[in-house]
């Protein structure tokens, strides 16, 4: 497929360009690499990093206490054995999906607007997976035996239960983490070489030099690089769909009312992309503001992301509708009871809050004026993040707290440790993100350069 061919119609159909005019190869490189190499560390960065880092320390503290005392410090008990840990796991892993979608599928589809957001979307994926991975491990109770999840020769002659979706999950998530890391790193190599060449102090030269792995930018390097990128994109593409499908199996393979439905895989995947794009937007808006990257991350990008959110949000809405419809259409009394309990039971407030956050409020993005308003988009993206978290809360907690036997009914209340662990992982996520912004190029320099080249050919420079 000819990249130029797809370029023209995209350019002509939108009011906003994917890169503001007036940039040359040199100025693009200067602008992006100066965030890392120039200026020194800004006060704003230090302030933000300090907050994120203190939250990370909170995580250290809670995890330390958890390892000493056990999962009893959380609010989980029978019947609600899954609680916050699984809610947060699904939430974080879902957030990662936008990064993979942007970097893999949009790359294969030659969507050039992905260029300026893919780097930090991929970073976001990695950091989100890191946060997600912690929860099931901590929830195991004896996290130091986590390697029992892997099939390896052992003196117990014991393998994991391959019929259990929880084991599929281990493979899905670890594959996802590995491929995402490789994809991100391979994409970084040419830019790391740029930073190595531009760095002024010795330590930076050595560190970027090691990471650049001897990249010299020869034609052979580029040709291999292109092959590797396409191959990794091909590997990552099925992961966009498969990872959250397997996560949904954790629920849908079980017999619990509200979990045992065939709509779960597609609706989980759509929800994952929905929440992921919301998170990309939550991060992109402040980053472009604080680092003056409005010329690279334009309203075109925000508008496109808003449209993706609208589309996936509607799929999610369809999922909610179908769940409700099938509960009555199937005639299964347990399913019917579950839906009624969801809507009117003790957690009904959270269900209706979820509907408001995920379905009702985002509909205002149909208005072009809203899609052009950065502040409103930011607020909506936060609301969707909350909504998607509530969705997982509703699925996990409401289904479990009213079991088949009324004698085993109970309530779930998160403890302060539940909250501290959750907030702590947000601290981990933000800490990694701040370090990433400070030490690596947030936007792919060489891809922006090629974008400048292509746009230059069509429109002569001003």
């Amino acid at each position, binding site marked *: 497929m000819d990249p130029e061919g797809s370029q023209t119609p995209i350019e002509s159909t939108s009011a906003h360009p994917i890169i503001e005019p007036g940039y040359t190869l040199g100025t693009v490189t200067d602008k992006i690499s100066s965030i890392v190499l120039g200026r020194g560390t800004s006060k704003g960065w230090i302030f933000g990093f300090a907050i994120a880092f203190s939250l990370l320390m909170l995580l250290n503290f809670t995890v330390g206490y958890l390892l000493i005392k056990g999962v009893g410090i959380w609010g989980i008990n029978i019947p609600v054995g899954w609680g916050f840990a699984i809610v947060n796991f699904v939430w974080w892993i879902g957030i990662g999906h936008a990064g993979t979608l942007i970097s893999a599928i949009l790359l294969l589809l030659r969507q050039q607007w992905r260029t300026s957001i893919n780097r930090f979307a991929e970073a976001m994926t990695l950091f989100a997976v890191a946060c997600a991975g912690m929860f099931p491990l901590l929830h195991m109770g004896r996290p130091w035996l986590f390697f029992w999840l892997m099939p*390896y*020769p*052992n*003196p*117990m*002659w*014991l393998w994991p239960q391959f019929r259990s979706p929880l084991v599929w999950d281990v493979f899905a998530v670890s594959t996802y983490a590995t491929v995402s890391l490789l994809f991100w790193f391979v994409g970084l190599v040419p830019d790391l070489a740029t930073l*190595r060449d531009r760095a002024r102090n010795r330590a930076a*030269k*050595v560190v970027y*030099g*090691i990471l650049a*792995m*001897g990249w010299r930018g020869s034609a052979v390097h580029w040709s291999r690089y292109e092959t590797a990128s396409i191959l990794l994109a091909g590997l990552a593409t099925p992961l966009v769909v498969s990872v959250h499908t397997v996560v949904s199996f954790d629920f849908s393979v079980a017999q619990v009312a509200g979990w045992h439905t065939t709509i779960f895989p597609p609706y989980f995947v759509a929800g994952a992309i929905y929440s992921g794009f919301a998170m990309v937007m939550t991060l992109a808006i402040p980053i472009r503001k604080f680092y003056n990257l409005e010329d690279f991350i334009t309203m075109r990008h925000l508008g496109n992301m808003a449209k993706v959110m609208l589309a996936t949000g509607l799929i999610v809405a369809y999922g909610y509708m179908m769940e409700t419809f099938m509960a009555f259409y199937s005639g299964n009394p347990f399913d019917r009871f579950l839906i009624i309990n969801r809507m009117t039971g003790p957690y009904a407030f959270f269900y209706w809050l979820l509907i408001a956050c995920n379905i009702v409020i985002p509909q205002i993005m149909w208005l072009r004026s809203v899609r052009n308003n950065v502040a409103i988009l930011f607020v909506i993206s936060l609301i969707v993040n909350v909504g998607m978290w509530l969705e997982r809360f509703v699925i996990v907690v409401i289904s479990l707290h009213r079991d088949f036997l009324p004698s085993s009914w109970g309530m779930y209340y998160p403890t302060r440790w539940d909250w501290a662990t959750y907030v702590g992982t947000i601290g981990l996520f933000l800490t990694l993100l701040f370090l990433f912004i400070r030490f690596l190029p947030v936007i792919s320099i060489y891809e922006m350069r090629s974008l400048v080249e292509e746009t230059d050919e069509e429109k002569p420079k001003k």
Partner: protein
Amino acid sequence: MQIFHHSTNTISRVSIYGAVFILALLGGVLYAIELSPIYTRVNEAREQPVPFSHKHHAGELGIDCRYCHTTVEKSSFAGLPPTQTCMTCHSQIWTNAPMLEPVRASYRDDKSIAWTRVNALPDFVYFDHSIHVSKGIGCTTCHGQVGEMPLTWKANTLYMSWCLDCHRQPEKYVREKSKVFDPGYVTPANQMELGARLVKEYKIHSLTDCSTCHR
């Protein structure tokens, strides 16, 4: 200006390719240690407060296992003999042997001898001696040739793989019920034939559910 010496090329290649083999080797070494007596303490004679010799008592004198381990046929625990059991003989013979002073002290002061446990299963394993003994699993199958141990040692790892080996194929180890307490039992040449017959005769089931042992 060159940042790195040109040898870096070789070092980086070796370390990247080598990482796989180093990790595999490390895993292999750890696994080998886990299986070796360094970790399992198999075949390691253990110090005891009194140097009790199974070789002398069970092997040379021919005292039946059940004379001391009285509950082995009725209970999950085979039973450790009280000092009174020792004194049934040692109040008559070797009454002044200095080696036996801790036994006499225990008898005088009515305080148990603190033996060092040699064969111990973790608490999360439900194990019952009586069922094994009454289905034709001999003492020496698990505990080794106790009649030849001057100081007692562990003869097997007691790892789950070791349990499963028999639980999956009991015919490899089962013997005539009359020979269960024979300390010098030798596995016959036709074990598989005999085993298959006894498994049927004793109605032995191959129990490998998790909940058989982890209740």
